[in-house]
């Protein structure tokens, strides 16, 4: 898997915006996460010194929130619900299918950075169980056919580009 190139210029721009403001850590990290798809570990020291924090503190925040990742994630993060309701309604099979379709294990990212497969404990949409999310979009009442078509959308998207 190719390591991701970091666009240092862009990173520095984001960091500079928040320089000297300790409280700006979370918005800053959000922007980095959104721009790069992850918080590059190499950026931790830079962020810390710009904000007057210890690098260990920055890392603490990054690893605490599930919204931040230190490893690059795919363009599409697939979150398959394994909460109680979904589990009862066959969420386990959905996950098995997703693994087969994408060729990924849980918490794995495809070499082309297209997909990351994750599980989640309840998306708060149990009435639609079994459920999953692709980035911010919800998909409910999943069936094998529906899973294939959802995935196809995102794969197709890839072909288009």
């Amino acid at each position: 898997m190719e390591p991701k190139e970091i666009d240092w210029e862009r990173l520095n721009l984001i960091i500079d915006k928040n320089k000297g403001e300790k409280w700006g850590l979370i918005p800053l990290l959000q922007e980095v996460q959104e721009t790069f798809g992850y918080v590059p570990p190499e950026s931790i020291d830079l962020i810390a010194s710009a904000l007057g924090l210890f690098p260990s503190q920055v890392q603490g925040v990054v690893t605490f929130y599930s919204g931040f990742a230190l490893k690059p994630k795919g363009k599409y993060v697939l979150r398959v619900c394994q909460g109680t309701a979904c589990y009862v309604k066959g969420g386990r099979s959905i996950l098995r299918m997703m693994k087969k379709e994408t060729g990924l294990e849980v918490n794995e990212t495809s070499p082309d950075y297209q997909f990351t497969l994750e599980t989640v404990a309840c998306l708060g949409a149990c009435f639609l169980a079994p459920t999953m999310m692709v980035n911010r979009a919800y998909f409910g009442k999943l069936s094998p056919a529906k899973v294939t078509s959802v995935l196809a959308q995102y794969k197709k998207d890839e072909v288009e580009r």
Partner: protein
Amino acid sequence: MIPCLFQDCLAKGCFLNGHINLSIDGKTVICPPGASVLEAAEENGIKIPTLCHHSGLEPFGACRLCLVEDENTGRLMASCVTPAAPDMAVLTASPRVIKHRRNIVRLMMAEHPESCIVCSKGNRCQLRRIAAQLGIGETGLYPMPNYKAYEQANPFMVRDLSKCVLCGKCIRADHELVVAGAIDYSHRGFESRPATVHELPLELSSCTFCGTCLSMCPTGALAPKNNMFVGTPDREIPTVCGFCGVGCSLSMGVFSDTVVEVNPSRGKNTVNGSTLCVRGHFAHDFLNVSQRLTRPLIRRDGQMSPASWDEALDTAATRFLAVQKESGPSSVAFLGSSKCTNEENYLFQKIARVLLKTNSVDNGGYLSGRSALAPLYKRTNGGDRVRSLAGLEKAEAIVVIGADVTETLPVVSYGLKRAAQKGTPLIVIDPRQTGLSAHASMRLPLKPQTDLELINGLSALLVRKKAQNAIFTDHFTKGFEAFKEALLKLDLEKTGRVTGVTPEALDEAAEYLRGKSVAFVVGGGVLEQRYAALTLDALFNLCLMTGSLGHAGAGLYVLAQENNQAGAWDMGTVPDALPGRQPLNDSLAREKFERAWQASISPDRGLDLIRMIEEAEKGNLKALYVMGENPLRALPQPDRVKRALEKLDFIVVQDILKTETTEIADVVLPGAAFSEKGGSFTNLEGRIQFFNPAVPPPGEAKPDWEILDLLARKMGSPRRFGSLERLRGEIAGLVPMYAGINEGSGAVWVVEASDKELFKNEGGARVSFAPVSSIEEEGQSDSYPLTVILGSVRFHLGSGTRTGYSGRVREFHQNGAVELSPQDWTAFGLQAGDSVKLTSAHGSVVRETAKNSALTQGLVFVPEAVHNNDARNLIGLFPLGQPDSPGWKTCPVRLEKL
């Protein structure tokens, strides 16, 4: 606080100080406003179990063990984070509290690994102790050990995070107390743990191995690393660290007769609080090495052979007296110790002065700038000497000049970093980037040895900005107008040229200081440089001008490298002063001692450390007594020193370890380390700290004062002191500064010798401004185009004699690489792992190299103490600067790639 007037405030509530009444376990107690329920309970002798609470740290509330029940509402609250409030009524051990507390501990135990039973923390583990108190054996829960990283690659600490209860004390100690930021919580839930950035091992993080976190950890998650089984301490004995001039209070954990562990003492108002540094915490393992001297030795036919005390002391006494009789008092000299106690140094110089009639007495403090400080001491007439480090945290602004405190005096650096964290402006004046730079408001990167120009430039700028403290200069000083005129004439362009500091930077610094009373922290970079005395004068001028004297958090904080550097001077182990720093040429002072000692004392100053070597070289000095110093390693040009001392007819070395110097001795007397004897050290603040032995000396070794006491008797002294108390009694009587030394336990402060109201009340003698002096611009010579800066690394102290014997420090492999700027690195075509030879006019060293991207081109940093302190080869033995300023901080060199 206003003294309490009424006895019935317990019933009625305090209206004077806002004290709060509350009921704990049905008992009415009183506590100051702002106290937590836990503090109120503790103050009143009610014990509440805690894991995450520490009085030195901000309240946190992580473990919930300190639960109490509110009698009124039935609520359960964590007492450490609940402020005490009037009319509150809590129960600390109600059935509900106990039930919940037990459950918390059961859950913790269920998460604990099986290795608990063989944990080195043993019965000192707070978790285990609390579990026992609550009667928890089997948890009755499904065990779910939380296996996490086990780290023990470094020689100092073991981290077994499976035993971590996430109390966060280590993290808070690291952030709040030592401000290293090496660790913080990482991850969340079951996964969470204290981690370094990128989860690197500690030695690759910003951890300094101060061990502060370790001493606070309530469980066995953090433990000192020992290479062999040393046993769990069976007693703890308070003592004082014998390494640097901070003088941290320690608690030594002793098993059988061996010191196996060191922690910060739990005493109140200690200089170090709950912190220590890597030396104090871990390097004490040198105490137990096989190279300790355990019996007296005498050289017979060129070979050292064991001797009885009687024989060794007889030989020492007879030979010294014979040499003195034959060649006169100027043929004998006494080198005392900035590491030995006050009592020992007093006795030492008394033997020299009274029994051998010589003033040729000095101590290792010469190497760390004592001679440069003497004129300043004279200028203030001994006033304004006592200065508590705690004051630094109250300073309005701080200037750190020539002090790499994160390496040399780590505990001082903690206070500085804490002050900076609270927003105190901190200016670092140093040619190199130091560990403080990242915390500083600004750094002035000046050229080496140009501090004098810089300080004068700064003073001139402040005068131009009319930022002097006129009230202060009017009341306490004389000669300000002339000083001001001289400053106004100063050519600031030259300042810029000589120092290499831009006018903008200088102006920014002046703005930080404008209108403030400033604390100046002065280190070896100034004290050991060739313009040391002049720079100190200029700094003191700046103090006078800004009114930075007479209160906490202002004035010159002169740092001391060695633990009893200040005390050795106070006790008269110097060639030109009697005990109490009373000048030798002051006939009143001399007469006082002559009467007390019933001996005549010569008014002529004796040889200082360097002149001792010089006279030995010339053959004029014939006998030398060395106590607790290792001149063959600590002095410049060690080979030359060795040759000089080998010429002596007779040399006695009293020490605790086999050293380069004991190798050439005729008689070796085994002394005791600080943990093995009683005595007192005076730290850089002027705090005289007493201690008692924690363990007995090894083998036949004896406390140094006892050796001296026996020797004095053999040399003809009518009687022995026989006890520390009697020794202290004599000191207290003759040395007003040490009037408190009879106290004998805890700590007392040096009584400022004279004019002590100087800067505190009007009416004391005024202090004059010293003339504004200047240095010449120097060109670099072609044959030695680079400038070496010598400096310390925190794992070693001084020449590294003791720390070099520490197994842990040795194992922590330091190659002592010399550091070069990126420009020079490229210019010399260096690559990682390359070695270079540095050659000065006096000698050379061969070392590995490292690129330091923060170093200015043309500078080379050479760490001292490592490689048998070979860095000393580079500098010349005889003073370069003025007589008072040896100038051993830098030297010109050339570099060859090997």
